[in-house]
C-alpha cells in the first residue's frame, strides 16, 4: 500500500512548505564570526602584493589571511578518478603567487558581521601583474606552471581493431561538435558553518551536502585531525546537481578558522561568487570519425575530445572526461572504439561534475553522429539507431572498458523494445506528420530525439541501520545524503514494502556523520540502488526478528505469523490475537535485546538505466528563438519505487537540459573575464521556457545486481536533452546537421537562417 510502486506524497515536505527548513544560511551559533573571500579580478597573473592594513583596521574585523597564512594547508585532494599526473594541478585554499581564474580566493576576511566582512573585503588592495590568459581549450597548449604543461593528461579508452574497421568501411562520417560551459547552479548557494567543540579538540561542520562522510575523512586529513574529531551535519540542501557538497577552498577555510580563532565561523556564498567560483561543467569539444557499412552500422568509432578543465583540477579529478570516454558509445554495438579525452587547463573557473556528467556531452556528440550518418546515407535516423542498437540477447553486454573503477557492463536492457514503446506511446509518426504539415505552411516546427544510456548505483557499498524504539517508532539511519530528491520517502517505501507500517512513523536520517560511522552519500544516482538495497536488507532481517519475538509473545511459530499494517498476527486468522510493534519493541527490551539491525549492501558494478528523449520545437524566424513545445521521455528504471518522484526527477532534469541546450552558458571574454556572473546573464529557464514533460517509465529490464531490481533515476531527465533539441532544431530548419554547438542561441539560429536564405 505504501511500499514500492506507491505514489506516496513526500515525507519531507512539511518543514519546507512552512518556512521551517534548515538550509545552510539558516544555521547560526552564538558568537559566530563571518567569513568573506577576497577574489582575484584577474584571470591569470602574478600576485605582487596584498595590502590588508586598512582592512585590518576596519570595524569588526577579527583576522585576515592570505596565502602565506595557509602555507601549511595541503591542496584540496581528489576523491574520485584519481590520476597522479594531475596532482600538481590541485587548488590550494588561498592562491599562492599566481592567480589562475577570476574568482580565485586570494584572501579571507573574518569579521563580527557578514556585512562588516564584506566592507573590509573592499579595502584589501590586491596587486596582480597580469599574465597572458589561456582561454580556449582547443588552442595550442602552454604551461600551467614552469615545467607543467596545461594539457597534462589524455584519458584513453579503446577496444577492438579500429584500423581494420576503417580499412573495411563502406564510408566514413566525421563531425565536430562542441558543448558550452554550464553547470547545476542550485538555487541555494554554497555555505558552511564550522563550530569548535571541547576546546578546539573537535569540530562540527554544518551546511554539509552530498557526501558528508567522505568529506569528513578528507577534511580531517587536510586539517590534521583524526576522523573522530570532526563531524559533518547535513541540514536541508537547496539542490545538488553534482556541484554542491564537494570540498571547496571556502569549506576548508571555515574549518581552519573555527579551529584557529576558537569561534564558530560562518560563510554563505552570494550568487555572484557562485557563478565564478563554484564548479562549472560540460565545456567539451568533440571530433568524431566513424567507419560505417552501407546500412549505417558503425564498424569503428574514433573519438577525440578536449575537456575544458578550467584553472585547477578539483575533487573530481578525471571523473568527467573518464565518463565521457566510457559512455560515449551509448546503446550501440560499435565493435571497435577509441576515445581520447584531452584534459586541458584554462584560465576559467575550475570544472567538476554536473548531473549526467560526461553523458549530456557525449550523448550530444554521439547522437549528432547518428543523425550525420543518416544524412550521409539518406536513410532515416531511427533506422540507423535500430541497426546499431545492442540486441537484447547480447545482454549482459561487456563494453570492454571501465570507468570509475568499475567495468562497463550493461546489466539488463532491451534497447529496441524501449524504442518501439517510445515510438508508439508518443505516436511518433503523427508527430512527424504534424510538424511536416506545419513546415509546409511556413512554420519552423521540428522534432528530434536522442537515445541514451545512463549509469547508476555506484558502489562499493550502501549502508543503513534500522532501529525500532519502545514506542514502535522506526528510525532508518543511512549513510546517504539528501539534495532534495526525496530519499526519505523512497527509503521509507522500501522499508514498508517488507514491513507495512505508516510511513509517517518512520524517520529517515541522512548526512549525519555522528549517527552512522560510514556512508557514501548521494551522487551518481546511487541512493535508491545502494542505500535502498541496504534498507531492504535491514527490513528483511528486521522482519525475521520481529516475527521471532511475536512468535514468543503469541506462543506461535514465527512462520505461522504475518506482518500486517499495524502489527503481527497469525496468518489466515484475522480474528486471532495480534501484537503491535511497540509491544514487540518492549518485549525485545525486556529480553535485553533491541530491535536494531544494520546492513551493508555491497556491489562493485553499476547498473545501467537507459532512455530516449524526444523534443518538439518551433522556431521564430524573426528572433531566432527556439520554443520547446513538447518533451517526451521514455525511461527504463528497472523498478519504480515512487513513480511520482521519478517523474519529478525527469521533469526537473529535462528543464536543466533545456537550459544547457538553449540558454545557459558561462561565457568568458578574451581576457578571461566572466560575462555570466549574474542571473541576468546566466539564463536559467523559467516556466515560460519549459514545455510539459510527458513520461513513459518502464520496468521491462529490472537490474539483476540488486535485490530490488532498481536502477537510479537522478540523471535520466537531462541526458539526451541536448541531443534531442539539436536534432529538433535541425528538423525545424530543414537543415540536417546544422546544429554543431550547444547552447543553440537565437544568434546561432538567425545565422543559420541567413545561410539558408543565401543558399536558396
Amino acid at each position, binding site marked *: 500500500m505504501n511500499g514500492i510502486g506507491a505514489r506516496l*506524497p*513526500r515525507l*519531507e*515536505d*512539511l*518543514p*519546507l*512548505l*512552512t*518556512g*521551517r*527548513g534548515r*538550509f545552510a*544560511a*539558516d544555521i547560526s551559533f552564538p558568537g559566530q564570526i563571518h567569513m568573506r573571500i577576497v577574489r582575484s579580478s584577474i584571470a591569470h597573473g602574478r600576485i605582487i602584493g596584498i595590502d590588508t592594513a586598512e582592512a585590518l583596521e576596519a*570595524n569588526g574585523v577579527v583576522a585576515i589571511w592570505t596565502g602565506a597564512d595557509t602555507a601549511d594547508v595541503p591542496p584540496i585532494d581528489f576523491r574520485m578518478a584519481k590520476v597522479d599526473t594531475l596532482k600538481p594541478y590541485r587548488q590550494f585554499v588561498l592562491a599562492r603567487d599566481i592567480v589562475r581564474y577570476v574568482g580565485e580566493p586570494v584572501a579571507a576576511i573574518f569579521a563580527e558581521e557578514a*556585512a*562588516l566582512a564584506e*566592507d573590509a573585503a573592499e579595502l584589501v588592495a590586491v596587486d596582480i601583474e597580469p599574465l597572458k590568459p589561456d582561454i580556449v581549450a582547443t588552442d595550442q597548449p602552454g604551461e600551467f606552471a614552469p615545467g607543467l604543461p596545461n594539457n597534462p593528461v589524455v584519458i584513453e579508452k579503446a577496444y577492438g581493431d579500429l584500423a581494420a574497421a576503417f580499412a573495411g568501411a563502406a564510408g566514413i562520417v566525421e563531425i565536430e561538435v562542441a558543448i558550452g560551459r554550464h553547470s*547545476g*547552479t*542550485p*538555487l*541555494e*548557494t554554497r555555505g558552511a558553518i564550522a563550530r569548535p567543540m571541547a576546546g578546539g579538540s573537535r569540530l562540527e561542520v554544518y551546511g554539509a551536502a552530498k557526501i558528508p562522510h567522505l568529506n569528513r575523512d578528507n577534511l580531517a586529513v587536510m586539517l590534521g585531525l583524526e576522523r573522530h574529531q570532526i563531524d559533518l551535519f547535513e541540514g*536541508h*540542501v*537547496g*539542490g*545538488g*546537481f553534482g556541484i554542491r557538497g564537494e570540498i571547496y577552498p571556502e569549506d576548508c577555510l571555515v574549518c581552519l578558522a573555527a579551529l584557529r580563532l576558537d569561534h564558530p565561523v560562518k560563510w554563505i556564498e*552570494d*550568487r*555572484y561568487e557562485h557563478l565564478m567560483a563554484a564548479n562549472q561543467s560540460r565545456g567539451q569539444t568533440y571530433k568524431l570519425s566513424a567507419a560505417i557499412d552501407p546500412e549505417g552500422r558503425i564498424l569503428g568509432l574514433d573519438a577525440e575530445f578536449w575537456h575544458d578543465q578550467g584553472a585547477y583540477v578539483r575533487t573530481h579529478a578525471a571523473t568527467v572526461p573518464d565518463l565521457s570516454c566510457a559512455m560515449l558509445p551509448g546503446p550501440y554495438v560499435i565493435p571497435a572504439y577509441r576515445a581520447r579525452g584531452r584534459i586541458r587547463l584554462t584560465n576559467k573557473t575550475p570544472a567538476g561534475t554536473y548531473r549526467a556528467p560526461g553523458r549530456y556531452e557525449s550523448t550530444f556528440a554521439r547522437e549528432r553522429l547518428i543523425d550525420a550518418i543518416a544524412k550521409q546515407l539518406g536513410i532515416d535516423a531511427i533506422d540507423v539507431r535500430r541497426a546499431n542498437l545492442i540486441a537484447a540477447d547480447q545482454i549482459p553486454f561487456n563494453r570492454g572498458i571501465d570507468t570509475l573503477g568499475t567495468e562497463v557492463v550493461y546489466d539488463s536492457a532491451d534497447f529496441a523494445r524501449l524504442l518501439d514503446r517510445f515510438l508508439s506511446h508518443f505516436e511518433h509518426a503523427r508527430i512527424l506528420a504534424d510538424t511536416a504539415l506545419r513546415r509546409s505552411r511556413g512554420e519552423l516546427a521540428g522534432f528530434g530525439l536522442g537515445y541514451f544510456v545512463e549509469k547508476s548505483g555506484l558502489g562499493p557499498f550502501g549502508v543503513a541501520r534500522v532501529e525500532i524504539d519502545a514506542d514502535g517508532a522506526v528510525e532508518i539511519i543511512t549513510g546517504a545524503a539528501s*539534495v*532534495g*530528491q*526525496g530519499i526519505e520517502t523512497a527509503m521509507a517505501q522500501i522499508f514498508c514494502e517488507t514491513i507495512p507500517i505508516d510511513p509517517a512513523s518512520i524517520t529517515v536520517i541522512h548526512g549525519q556523520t555522528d549517527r552512522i560511522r560510514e556512508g557514501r552519500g548521494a551522487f551518481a544516482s546511487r541512493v535508491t540502488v545502494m542505500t535502498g538495497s541496504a534498507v531492504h536488507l535491514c527490513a528483511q532481517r528486521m522482519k525475521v526478528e520481529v516475527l521471532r519475538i511475536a512468535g514468543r509473545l503469541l506462543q506461535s511459530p514465527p512462520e505461522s505469523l504475518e506482518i500486517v499494517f499495524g502489527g503481527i498476527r497469525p496468518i489466515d486468522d484475522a480474528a486471532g490475537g495480534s501484537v503491535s510493534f511497540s509491544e514487540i519493541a518492549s518485549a525485545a527490551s525486556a529480553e535485553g535485546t533491541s530491535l536494531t539491525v544494520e546492513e551493508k549492501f555491497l556491489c562493485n558494478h553499476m547498473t545501467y538505466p537507459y532512455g530516449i528523449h524526444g523534443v518538439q520545437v518551433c522556431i521564430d524566424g524573426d528572433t531566432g528563438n527556439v520554443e520547446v513545445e513538447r518533451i517526451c521521455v521514455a525511461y527504463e528504471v528497472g523498478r519504480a519505487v515512487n513513480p*511520482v*518522484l521519478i*517523474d*519529478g526527477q*525527469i*521533469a*526537473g*532534469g*529535462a*528543464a*536543466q537540459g533545456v537550459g544547457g541546450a538553449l540558454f545557459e552558458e558561462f561565457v568568458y571574454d578574451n581576457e578571461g573575464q566572466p560575462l555570466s556572473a*549574474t*542571473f*541576468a546573464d546566466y539564463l*536559467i529557464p*523559467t*516556466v*515560460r521556457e*519549459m514545455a*510539459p*514533460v510527458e513520461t513513459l517509465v518502464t520496468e521491462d529490464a529490472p537490474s539483476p545486481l540488486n535485490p530490488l531490481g532498481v536502477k537510479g533515476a537522478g540523471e535520466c*531527465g537531462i541526458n539526451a536533452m541536448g541531443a534531442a533539441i539539436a536534432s529538433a532544431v535541425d528538423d525545424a530548419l530543414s537543415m540536417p546537421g546544422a546544429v554543431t554547438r550547444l547552447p543553440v542561441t537565437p544568434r546561432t539560429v538567425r545565422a543559420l537562417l541567413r545561410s539558408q536564405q543565401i543558399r536558396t
Partner: protein
Amino acid sequence: MSERIALALTVNGQPFDINVEPRRSLADALREDCGLTGTHLGCEHGVCGACTVLIDGQPIRACLMFAVQSEGTEIRTVEGLADGDSLHPMQQAFHDHHGLQCGFCTPGFLMLAVGVLESQPDISDEALVEALSSNICRCTGYQNIVKAVRAAAEQMRQ
C-alpha cells in the same frame, strides 16, 4: 558602517521592533533580525524570486527592498501562510502535486502564487503562467508547480 535605525515592522500580523542599518535589505531583516528564515536568498539581485514576500498583498522581492521602506506595511511571509497545523490550500497543493523537491524556491513560489491569486482569483491560465515565470525553480521543471497552483486556485475560489 552607519547608525542603526529603530524600525517597527508588522510581519504576519505580529509586531517586530528591530534596529537595523539603513542599508539592511528587507530579506536580511526578516531573516536575521526577525528570525524568520523561511524567506530565502537565491541571488540577491532580484532575478530568482526565492525571497518573494507580500507587502500589502503584493508580491515583492525582499532582496531589492530596504527594511526601512517596509515600515507601516503589512508584510506576509511563508511562516504566516498556515493556520496553526492547517496548511494553506497553496501549501497543501504543493504537497499533493509534488510541487517541490529541494524546497529552497518553495517559499518564494508560495508567496508569489498566493499574492497573485488573492488579487486576481480569476486570472487566466496564460496570465498565471506568465506570473509564475517571475521566479526560478531549479529542481521541478515547473510543471508540478503549475499543477499545484491551478489546483489551489480552484480551492481558493471556493
